[in-house]
């Protein structure tokens, strides 16, 4: 049974609370933790809230975005320089949930949720992780797989702003809005003279965590950026995913449609 809820006012205080309280769980927006608590749980007996820890806010500097981990998805969507992310953010839950859910929390929600993580992987984002004494910087695709160790907190996510028009996104769900992912595809593709020179692809909904589609990236780089080559490269996705069954779609279906949605994300058809 829950014994304590702490709302520390700074990062050092947050680390101190995590160390002091036994069996503590970090809570940011609460959209994933609170359903667990409300249903009764033995997973934790205290909550440490990041709401007042000073970890929210976005700054744009030298072509890069620095995003506090406790920034809500709504606040992220309000930053003009991040306008390219709005169509992706609007596919995540509902406006009411986006007013609560945070960038940091979105990295660790159970799939098939957490579409922003797929976007951040495509953007080549890194996350800053603090353990109270040291900080390390991990690529997002590494962090979502390894998850946080005891006492660790993600404080910030950052990435270089992509060239205009290079960020691609599509999400397949069971309904138009407020749907969990069957497949989420995010990508940043750079093409010079019709040839793909660089590409990074993040996938959501098709593995235990958001993943990078390295096989597709490799197959596409150096090829013509057209339907034939994108379709062919997208077939490689099966090497990158480990889809699962849930009430939204079967693993078989997810595997079958992933290449189709990669193609749609990349070339819009």
């Amino acid at each position: 049974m829950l014994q304590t809820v702490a709302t520390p006012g700074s990062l050092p205080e947050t680390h101190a609370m995590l160390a002091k309280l036994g069996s503590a769980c970090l809570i940011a927006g609460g959209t994933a933790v609170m359903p667990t608590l409300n249903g009764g749980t033995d997973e934790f007996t205290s909550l440490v809230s990041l709401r007042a820890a000073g970890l929210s806010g976005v700054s744009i500097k030298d072509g890069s975005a620095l995003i506090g981990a406790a920034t809500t998805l709504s606040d992220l969507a309000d930053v003009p320089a991040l306008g390219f992310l709005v169509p992706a953010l609007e596919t995540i839950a509902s406006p009411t949930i986006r007013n609560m859910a945070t960038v940091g929390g979105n990295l660790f929600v159970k799939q098939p949720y957490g579409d922003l993580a797929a976007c951040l992987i495509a953007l080549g984002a890194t996350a800053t992780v603090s353990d109270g004494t040291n900080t390390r910087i991990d690529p997002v695709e590494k962090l979502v797989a390894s998850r946080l160790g005891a006492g660790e907190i993600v404080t910030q996510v950052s990435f270089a702003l992509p060239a205009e028009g290079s960020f691609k996104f599509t999400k397949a769900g069971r309904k138009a809005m407020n749907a969990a992912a069957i497949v989420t595809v995010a990508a940043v593709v750079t093409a010079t003279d019709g040839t793909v020179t660089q590409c990074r692809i993040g996938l959501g909904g098709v593995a235990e965590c958001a993943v990078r589609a390295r096989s597709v990236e490799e197959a596409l780089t150096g090829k013509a950026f057209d339907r034939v080559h994108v379709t062919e490269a997208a077939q490689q996705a099966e090497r990158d995913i480990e889809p699962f069954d849930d009430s939204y779609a079967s693993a078989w279906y997810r595997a079958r449609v992933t290449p189709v949605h990669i193609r749609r994300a990349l070339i819009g058809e």
Partner: protein
Amino acid sequence: MEKIDTSFFSKEREADLFVVGESVQRADARGHVTGQTQFYEDVTFPNTLHLKMVRSPHHHALIKNIDVEPAMKVPGVVRVLTHKDVPNNWYTILKLIGVGPDDEPVLPEDRVLFKGEQVCAVLAETEQAALEGARRVVVDYEELPPVFDVEEAMTSKPFKQAGTNYFVYEGHNCRRIRFGDVDKGFAEADHIIEHRYESSPIEHAPTETTGCTAKPEGSGRVTVYSNTQALYFTLDNMALILGVPFNKLRLVGGTVGGGFGGKVDVIVEPIAALGAMLTNRPVKYAYSRAEEMQVSSPRAAERLYIKDGVMKDGRIVARKITLYVDAGAYCRHSTYGTTKAAAHMPGPYSIPNVHVDAYCVYTNRTPSSAMRGFGVTIGDFALESQMDQVARHLGMDPMELRLINAYRDGDTKAHRKTVDGAALVEVIQAAARQTGKELAPRFAAMSSYQREA
């Protein structure tokens, strides 16, 4: 809103309807838009205990032992109720209208028959304490093989404490309808068209979950604030289960945050009232969203086999229907739903030879119960799909096929009731008009009141 055409019913009703077809403001709308409408959960009492259930993790298992001691050690836990506390543990909801036998325990004794079945109830000072108490109860189960398929269940070893895996209707293993001679009809038919239809359980998913608060009064009565759709049914069943006169119970309700038939089972009230009587404190028992989705009764899954004997001109001369209603683990309202399904066959058509076997079958699935037109809705899906299949097979227009076979006033239905107030012909004619479809003169001239010469 389109005006109601009252001309069809000029013979039987006052035609000067002034509310039907008009928009009339809901009497409760102001309460809804201001948030003042009072649902059961809006009435609270000091000193209320919260009730949470220990539920079976197995579809089918024997209960070897229930150890409530670890739960009693959780701070705030006041009492745990088991079947031993229930005065009359065995019941069936429809016993009030003479249906039997009692096939469902309020709290199970030696076995659980579906996943999520309630096992024992923890009463505590707070919801979180009740939840923790429920997690601490240790139940030893011996798992048994479950049966999920209705046809498999018909031939499996009976799994209930008593009786068969199907409801017994006056000595028969199904509700039967025999009208004419189907074998003769099939022999005479130009075509035999047979198909199988099946549905899955459908959950009502009301936005407000099922729940109630039972409050002991100074007068010795217990008042139950409930969102049941069936206040008197609930009151009477509670009285029988609790072994108290009806006038010792009072039900307050009628405001339901979505029901659709999902709130007519008597599950939460008897246990909450029992808790209130045994602790002399108000007791609240509200389903969580997960409980609502998992254990509240859904619409029954049904499987139908329909075999038609059809003449070249579209007349259906024989229809044989085998229908299985998946009641889940307990009877609840399914025996009634199955009878209703049988009586509804063969649909709104006059067919001279009809044979119906409608089985109400028990499986280790969540007990099913009422939902909007239950017993008829899935049957109609199957019947009307079959009519389209027949039309396609014959290359006929589906509206005309239905008109050829439509029942009329004065016809005798398969279950020996005389048809009165039929409107199928007129409804199809109106549908044809509204969709811009021209019916052949003989169909346009048809009437439900009399057959054409």
